[in-house]
């Protein structure tokens, strides 16, 4: 062996990278969990990509720092600093000194970025639209904390199971906010976490003793024991790992089945397969285009009715607009609203309006998978099997039972054909505030309707002086072939930005299909102050037999409903004649002249409308545009507190365990340190178990104290697996030998021989066990979870100075045959 090669070996030893496998597994676990956040935004790459990069950075940095042999807290601090600098570069590179050094301005920028992100998180419901990039920094910051915590726990401090806490917190984020995590993401994250746990355990096992490798492998004693790498241990035990992980992961992924549908409308379930010939409707407007155009024209609902024209079978009403999409508002569905025959009277409908009852027998085909029950509007009675519940205001019917859908469902309904006259609509009084409150709200900042939209609405409705006149003006404007062209070759979307493109003349402008027409008209009606919402349903069936009609996938349609007092919600049809040839009767023809005197009560009783949109601040009230899901950020804030609480709970125990391990190491080393460690441990045990210990007393006095404690009878026997209680005499002799070793360590100039120190530590363990055996369960539990020795010092035992007599007698009785003086 040449000197050069020796040097080479040494160099290789010095730069050898430690904990690569664990670091990579930790990064993988973090990344996969964070990938589960992809449901929080339409375009999740804005935060997943930086976070994956950050996880890699933290992992690689950690490996390098740990391999340099830096102390653990330093490693963690440097990782935090590195991650913070990376985020700083990401958010405030322009204002930083020299392009990287933080200064007051750049830190202010970072704070602003986060502030905007928090604001955005309050403003937008998940999934946040792709163009709202100000939202991403919040998730990046939260994700960075998760990544750092997981790496610190699992790799730096080798406590892989504790890394489960930040991972769990990260996991609960999508669960609490959106439908949850995709099963494949969950599978990957869970596998990475379990492998991380296995890596830590195998790491410990590999260092516990000399590994015997290979079957029938002989191992030579003179070889220095080589410690296998974690990767090698994982590879070697892959068989056993697969046996444990495979059933665990399979059962876990299937685990979501054990929970019955409890609450929430959109709870769980992945999107239905769009490639199959099934039509699945969850958020109706989002699924509309896909079902309308892309799918095959399968038959969905068959209707038997005496209604001569059963058009406009409504599935759902979307009464909430958040700037991004129309969606059903949060429904409050108590069990009392199960459909069971009668349904409540349609909102705002007067007896004076002409109405005809029709009975419907409906049967949905097996290909129709909807959480919503298609019904004529307004329905006054319905009866279906299963837990279907109606909403009082919109009269649409949905289910909270996740397993329930419309496939193969047969049900009955009674619907009204309402035929108001144009006059009735024209003379409608002001709608009640209960209706306007929720149905004219628009998600514009400071209630400022964008100028282009306000001008457009003013332009179209110029000269119209009633709500109905304005509605008619809007409908005519949309249906005018000179203005709009019907085409399904358009990307779905009904957000404000989509509408702007749709409403503005241009290459892509003024082209769309029912989704755009309906939502644009609803928005513009709201701008004009008319309560409006979007309905989704079927347009016109094909007649198969007399009295039997068939709705198919391509009949899916969307239309606006506007509210008029005295008539209720009234259907309009802005979609051009290509798709919807006819308009409702009351909107056709000339508008009758408004005669003020015919209904003086109506106009007199109606107060002067103050329909400025500033009446309600939708953002400040925080409920209007995000109420389909609870995205209040306060709901998330307790999640990171979970690990904190767990730390508080486990902290003392972990600290005490660490102390014991350190002492055990000292004890194994023997000598002076071993003897002192043994004594310290005895002191701590006595204190932990709730007994008194006097730090000021002499060793011999403390020894007597120990002997008195040992004089008690053991309480029961401890759990199996530990050796039976030591013979009492041996334990007492042990006390003697520990005390001697300590005396020698403290008072003798020569050091305690190593073997004696080791012996003292071993004896101390026997005594410790004996002390535990002599304690009540409660004391043991306290000693385990809330060790007193970490908090209190030793105080003189109570009553020692005064009542020396009796106690000393007892002591002497105990001592007689144990201590040779």
């Amino acid at each position, binding site marked *: 062996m040449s000197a050069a090669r020796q040097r080479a070996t040494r160099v290789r030893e010095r730069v050898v990278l430690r904990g690569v496998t664990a670091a990579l597994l930790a990064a993988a676990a973090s990344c996969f969990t964070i990938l589960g956040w992809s449901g929080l935004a339409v375009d999740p790459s804005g935060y997943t990509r930086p976070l994956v990069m950050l996880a890699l950075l933290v992992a690689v940095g950690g490996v390098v720092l740990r391999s340099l042999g830096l102390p653990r807290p330093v490693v963690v601090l440097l990782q935090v600093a590195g991650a913070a600098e990376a985020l700083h570069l990401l958010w405030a590179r322009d204002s930083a000194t020299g392009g990287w050094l933080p200064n007051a301005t750049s830190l202010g920028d970072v704070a602003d970025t986060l502030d905007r992100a928090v604001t955005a998180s309050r403003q937008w419901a998940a999934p946040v639209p792709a163009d709202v990039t100000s939202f991403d920094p919040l998730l990046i910051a939260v994700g960075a904390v998760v990544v750092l915590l997981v790496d610190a726990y699992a790799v730096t401090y080798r406590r892989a*199971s504790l890394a*489960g806490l930040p991972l769990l917190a990260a*996991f609960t984020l*999508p*669960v*609490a906010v959106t439908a949850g*995590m995709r099963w494949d993401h969950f599978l990957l994250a*869970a596998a990475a976490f*379990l492998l991380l*746990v*296995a890596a830590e*355990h*195998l790491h*410990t*096992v*590999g260092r516990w*003793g*000399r*590994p*015997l490798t290979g*079957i*029938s492998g*002989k*191992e030579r*004693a003179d070889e220095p024991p080589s410690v296998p790498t974690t990767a090698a*241990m994982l590879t*070697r*035990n892959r*068989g*056993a790992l697969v*046996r*444990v992980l495979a*059933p665990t992961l399979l*059962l*876990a*992924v299937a*685990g*979501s*089945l*054990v*929970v*019955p*549908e*409890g609450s*929430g409308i959109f*709870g*769980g379930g992945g999107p239905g397969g769009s490639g199959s010939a099934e039509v699945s409707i969850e958020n109706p407007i989002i699924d509309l285009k896909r079902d309308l155009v892309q799918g095959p024209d399968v038959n969905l609902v068959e209707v038997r009715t005496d209604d001569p024209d059963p058009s406009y079978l409504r599935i759902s009403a979307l009464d909430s607009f958040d700037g991004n999409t129309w969606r059903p508002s949060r429904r409050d569905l108590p069990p009392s609203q199960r459909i069971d025959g009668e349904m409540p009277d349609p909102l705002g409908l007067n007896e004076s309006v002409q109405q005809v009852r029709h009975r419907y027998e409906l049967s949905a085909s097996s290909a129709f998978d909807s959480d919503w029950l298609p019904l004529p509007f307004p329905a006054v009675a319905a009866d279906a099997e299963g837990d279907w519940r109606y909403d009082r205001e919109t009269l649409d019917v949905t289910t909270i039972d996740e397993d329930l859908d419309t496939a193969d469902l047969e049900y009955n309904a009674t619907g009204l054909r309402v035929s108001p006259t144009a006059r009735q609509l024209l003379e409608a009084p002001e709608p009640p505030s209960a209706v306007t409150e929720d149905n004219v709200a628009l998600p514009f900042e400071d209630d400022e309707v964008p100028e282009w939209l306000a001008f457009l609405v003013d332009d179209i409705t110029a000269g119209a002086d009633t709500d109905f006149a304005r509605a008619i003006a809007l409908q005519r404007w949309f249906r005018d072939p000179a203005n709009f062209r019907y085409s399904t070759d358009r990307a779905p979307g009904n957000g404000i930005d989509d509408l702007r493109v749709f409403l503005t003349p241009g290459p892509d402008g003024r082209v769309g299909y029912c989704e755009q027409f309906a939502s644009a008209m609803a928005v513009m009606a709201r701008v004009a102050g008319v309560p409006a919402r979007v309905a989704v349903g079927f347009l016109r069936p094909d007649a198969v037999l007399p009295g039997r009609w068939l709705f198919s996938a391509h009949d899916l349609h969307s239309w606006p409903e506007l509210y008029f007092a005295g008539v209720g919600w009234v259907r309009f049809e802005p979609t051009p004649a290509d798709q919807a040839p006819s308009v409702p009767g009351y909107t056709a023809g000339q508008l009758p002249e408004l005669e003020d005197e015919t209904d003086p009560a109506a106009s007199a009783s109606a107060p002067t409308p103050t329909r400025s949109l500033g009446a309600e601040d939708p953002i400040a009230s925080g409920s209007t545009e995000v109420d389909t899901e609870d995205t209040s950020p306060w709901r998330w804030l307790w999640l990171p507190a979970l690990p904190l609480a767990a730390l508080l709970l486990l902290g003392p125990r972990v600290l005490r365990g660490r102390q014991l391990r350190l002492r055990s190491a000292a004890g*194994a080393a023997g000598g002076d340190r071993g003897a002192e460690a043994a004594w310290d441990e005895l002191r701590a045990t006595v204190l932990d178990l709730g007994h008194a210990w006097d730090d000021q007393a002499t060793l011999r006095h403390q020894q007597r104290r120990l002997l008195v404690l040992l004089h008690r009878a053991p309480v029961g026997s401890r*759990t199996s*697996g530990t050796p039976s209680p030591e013979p009492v005499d041996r334990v007492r002799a042990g006390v003697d030998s520990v005390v*001697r070793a300590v*005396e*020698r360590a403290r008072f*003798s100039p*020569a050091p305690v*021989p190593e*073997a*004696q120190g080791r*012996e003292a530590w*071993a004896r101390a363990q026997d005594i410790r066990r004996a002390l535990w055996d002599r304690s009540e369960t409660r004391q043991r539990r306290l000693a385990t979870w809330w060790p007193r020795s970490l908090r209190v010092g030793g105080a003189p035992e109570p009553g020692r100075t005064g009542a020396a007599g009796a106690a000393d007698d007892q002591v002497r009785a105990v001592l007689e045959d144990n201590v040779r003086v």
Partner: protein
Amino acid sequence: MRTLLSSLTGRGRAFASAGVTALASAFVLGLDDLARVGVLLLVAPAVSALLLRRFRHRLGLSRRVEPVTVGVGQPVTVRLRLSCEGSAVGGILLLEEQLPYALGVRPRFVVDRAMGRWKREMTYRLRPDLRGHYTLGPMAVRVTDPLGMVESFRSFTSSGDLVVTPKAEDLPPIALAGTWTGSGDNRPRAFAGGSAEDVTIREYRRGDDLRRVHWRSSARTGELMVRREEQPWQSRATVFVDNRRRAHAGEGPASSFERAVSLAASVALHLISRGYRVRLTTAEPAGALVQQWHEHGVTATESAPLLESLAVLQLSDQLRIDTTWATRVQQGGLVVAVLGRCTASDSAALRQLRHSADHTLALKLDVAGWARHAPTAAAPRVRASEEPLGAPWLVAHGWRAAALAHDDSLPEAWRTLGATRAAAVRT
């Protein structure tokens, strides 16, 4: 079920309880994704426990200690052969040999991929620092799973024995019986003569005259053999070790008693090599004594039992030296006493010892030198009436005695002993 639960480690229990909590919250909140976490946390320890339960193995272990008897500081190799006729389910075996603390760190072995039928060999080495009789083993086995969720403890029952004999030093030859033959080798009476046919042979030992080598036998056996010219009957020597606790000071390996045992071993081996039949006696009554005369024959076999008895010699709580052996057995021969602290109450016993033999030699340990290192422990105050009887007293009473302090070397003291003449008390 109970055993299943009790086999869970802290981690396993933490996982299981976290899993139950997560499942409960999932039911309460209706979050099916949380249920996945709950099932994951609950199933991982359960599957591990079930697999470990299925891990039925028949483990066999044989242990070979080489050599069985060893001197202090000499290496010992222990070979273990582990065989398993197990099931296909793998666990990780953590084996720990149970060793007395005095033998140092317990050897530990890890056997992973322990599936099916296999056989493995392992060895570990010891270098014991303390004399004594040690039990090696039994081997404790911990079976664990790769996730560290469960653990079960088992133990083999077999164990091995190891005798660590005290350290012995080579001593210079001195005139033992007080007579100088002038040959430099004061062996027991020389062979009385006779024809060559009567000559028996024995193996060569250090110090034998080269002229006595029996070349023919040497050629036949392949080992150096010498003519045996000693008498067929042997001179007898008794080595007495004072093993009373009160006579010694210090603790453990650094005590004066350990030194006394080492001296006794050196002296006994020296005497054996000088052709004496040696027996060992202590201060304890006859029952505890090593009373046999160790046969003077082949060195290795004859010294072994003696060293083994010295290896396990313990301090006794006896207050007086028991001298019944001195009165009971045949008189004559040589007594070498290794003495600790002697008080006035011992004078009678020492006188009796002196009278039991023709020649009495004493190595007197200056015990105070050991006591200094542990002033508080086991250092009885010496009262005025119990003045120790030192070497001068022994010499005055017909012993040939040499004092030995803490740092003195034995060969020096032995040489001094050879030079001392006892006072002619007894004629």
